[in-house]
């Protein structure tokens, strides 16, 4: 574990980016932070700017208009920053993979560290995915 990763393993700060989705994955992500599943007790919180983020969570299907914004947000995040693709649409395109406005899954544009499938993924699955991400770092 190098010097850069020493402060990275506990209390991650998340930045959430919706790349044009239907918002169900966003609701499940907010469920994780609300009192029933409550990952805020571990110090994990949502931040308002990507410059404060340790983890970039991308939810929703990537549309053609949002691709420059997605790449710009990733480039503005100070590294090390882990990227998580949340939901079936972010991983592979889900039910929209033949749509006219689909611009490829998230890993076609930015490098992804963890994939959390589901439509939408349950909060338990999101927590499991983040724990696996921490094990990988």
């Amino acid at each position: 574990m190098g010097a850069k990763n020493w402060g990275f393993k506990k209390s991650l700060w998340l930045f959430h980016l919706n790349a044009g989705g239907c918002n169900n994955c966003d609701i499940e992500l907010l469920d994780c932070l609300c009192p029933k599943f409550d990952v805020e007790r571990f110090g994990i919180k949502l931040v308002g700017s990507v410059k404060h983020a340790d983890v970039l969570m991308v939810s929703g299907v990537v549309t053609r208009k949002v691709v420059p914004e997605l790449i710009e947000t990733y480039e503005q995040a100070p590294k090390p920053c882990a990227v998580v693709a949340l939901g079936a649409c972010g991983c592979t395109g889900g039910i929209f993979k033949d749509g006219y406005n689909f611009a490829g899954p998230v890993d076609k544009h930015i490098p992804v560290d963890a994939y959390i499938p589901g439509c939408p993924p349950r909060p338990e699955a999101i927590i499991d995915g983040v724990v696996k991400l921490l094990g990988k770092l």
Partner: protein
Amino acid sequence: MSKEVLEHLRSEFGDRVDIVERNERRAYVTVSNEDWIAVTRFMYEEERGRLATATGSDRSTGVELLYHFCIDRDGTIVNIRTTIPKPFPKIEALTPYYPAADFIEREIFDFLGVEFIGHPDPRKILSAHDRPADFHPMRRDE
């Protein structure tokens, strides 16, 4: 009561409107393309209906447009329907009289290719900027 609204429509337009009442809170009014602007302006200006949203769908006979007017004083919805023949559908815009129809008509133009005559800003609103000008994804032509 929505009966009042339908009675006013019948007395104003006679048999140029064809009214079907689905239940006591929904009514469908079918008009022709020529009477479209007169009936929709009547719904907004005289009956004080609120244009909630609009629906467009591509049928085999043409593009069917539905404007949904909510009568808020009694909780009913009156839907004004017309069918515009293809291949180059054109109809008058409601935006000069009712500014809330601005984005609604731009979206119908963007996805179905209906040209709104008299619209002050006929640009596309949701498709990506690098699409060609005749890209109308909700058409069923192919």
